[in-house]
């Protein structure tokens, strides 16, 4: 297709350019990298979420070896490398991951969403592993969570104990770790998100998201990037698809970067 496309956009584009609704002062210069692996699905949504929060998204490619000059990195959801071998196991050895691991160990904020969480676990930046859902079903629904830790780079704009609703969509979201590791996570405040209501995937202790010791690396199975824009989020009491509880993740990292 070529030529004049105005007929398709005469009434404005179907999905408008992202308009930041809750800009963090001083955040417009922040650059947040989003890595695309072969099979990543939610990289565009993550980039849009970054724009909506008022920062600049930077597309990173799995074969890149440099993070360029980004201030934080998001590993998005999807099925990198077709989930071959184990979810995230192949992506963990992608060229870009060496830089991601170095940066994470140096304190850069890194967020892994869904498949990104699986990659972070496979890369040993976070403990434990994600296994097939206990009920053997792919689960897709709006999920209630409780924010248990607000001392991470990605959750400081939430209130401790705050209840949020963001979409959950995975087939292998069961969080597993040894009892000692689970006790350590609980004891050191590193359980960041916990499922509310019925456990959707058999995760040990209903864990939905965790952080590393320093709090700069966070991984979670549900998708905050799908709940950042009214009209496209979960249903709330205010109306259908009005939920924007995921915004807090992105405004949190901007607050972290601005205050750094």
């Amino acid at each position, binding site marked *: 297709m070529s030529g004049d496309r105005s007929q398709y956009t005469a009434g404005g584009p179907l999905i408008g350019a992202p308009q930041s609704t809750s800009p963090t002062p001083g955040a417009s210069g922040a650059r947040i990298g989003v890595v695309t692996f072969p099979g990543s699905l939610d990289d565009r949504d993550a980039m849009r979420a970054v724009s909506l929060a008022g920062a600049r998204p930077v597309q990173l490619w799995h074969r890149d070896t440099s993070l360029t000059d980004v201030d934080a990195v998001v590993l998005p959801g999807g099925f990198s490398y077709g989930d071959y*071998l*184990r979810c995230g*196991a192949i992506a963990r*050895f992608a060229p870009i991951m060496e830089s991601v691991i170095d940066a994470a160990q140096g304190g850069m904020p890194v967020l892994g969403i869904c498949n990104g969480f699986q990659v972070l*676990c*496979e890369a040993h930046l976070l*403990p*434990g*592993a994600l*296994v*097939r*859902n*206990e*009920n*053997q079903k792919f689960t897709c629904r709006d999920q209630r969570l409780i924010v248990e830790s607000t001392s991470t780079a990605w959750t400081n704009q939430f209130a401790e104990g705050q209840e949020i609703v963001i979409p959950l969509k995975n087939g292998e979201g*069961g969080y*597993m*770790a*040894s009892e000692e590791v689970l006790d350590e996570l609980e004891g050191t405040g590193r359980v960041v998100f916990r499922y509310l209501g019925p456990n959707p995937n*058999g995760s040990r202790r209903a864990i939905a998201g965790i952080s590393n010791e320093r709090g700069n690396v966070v991984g979670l199975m549900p998708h905050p990037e799908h709940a950042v824009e009214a009209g496209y989020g979960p249903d709330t009491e205010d109306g259908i698809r009005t939920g924007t509880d995921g915004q807090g993740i992105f405004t949190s990292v901007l607050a972290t970067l601005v205050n750094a």
Partner: protein
Amino acid sequence: MDKQSHPEGKRVDMGRVVVEVMPKPEILDPQGKAIGTGLQRLGIEGFEVRQGKRFELTFEGEATPEVIAEIERAATTLLSNPVIEDVVAIREEAAEARAEHPSTAIGAASDAVAEANDVEASAR
């Protein structure tokens, strides 16, 4: 040692090592559970099933201690995730024992099942 043709036309000795990985006993194995349910539907009762993975690593030359050490490294870094899986076997196998699947009894049986399924499907 099997003889396989080399790209340059030479025949070289090929070695083969099999690595087997199983989910840890304490980790629930939903895939095995689903397979067990499938068996019950076929009237094959009384089995608890756990599903693992089998990797065949074929290489030129013999399975020297150095080669085995490399394979052990592969087994614990990429082929398995020690948080949820155990490497239960690393063993050398004769390369000529490779299951050319239709020529084995099990292979022939699974072909027969596949054909029967095809016939059943086309009859629907």
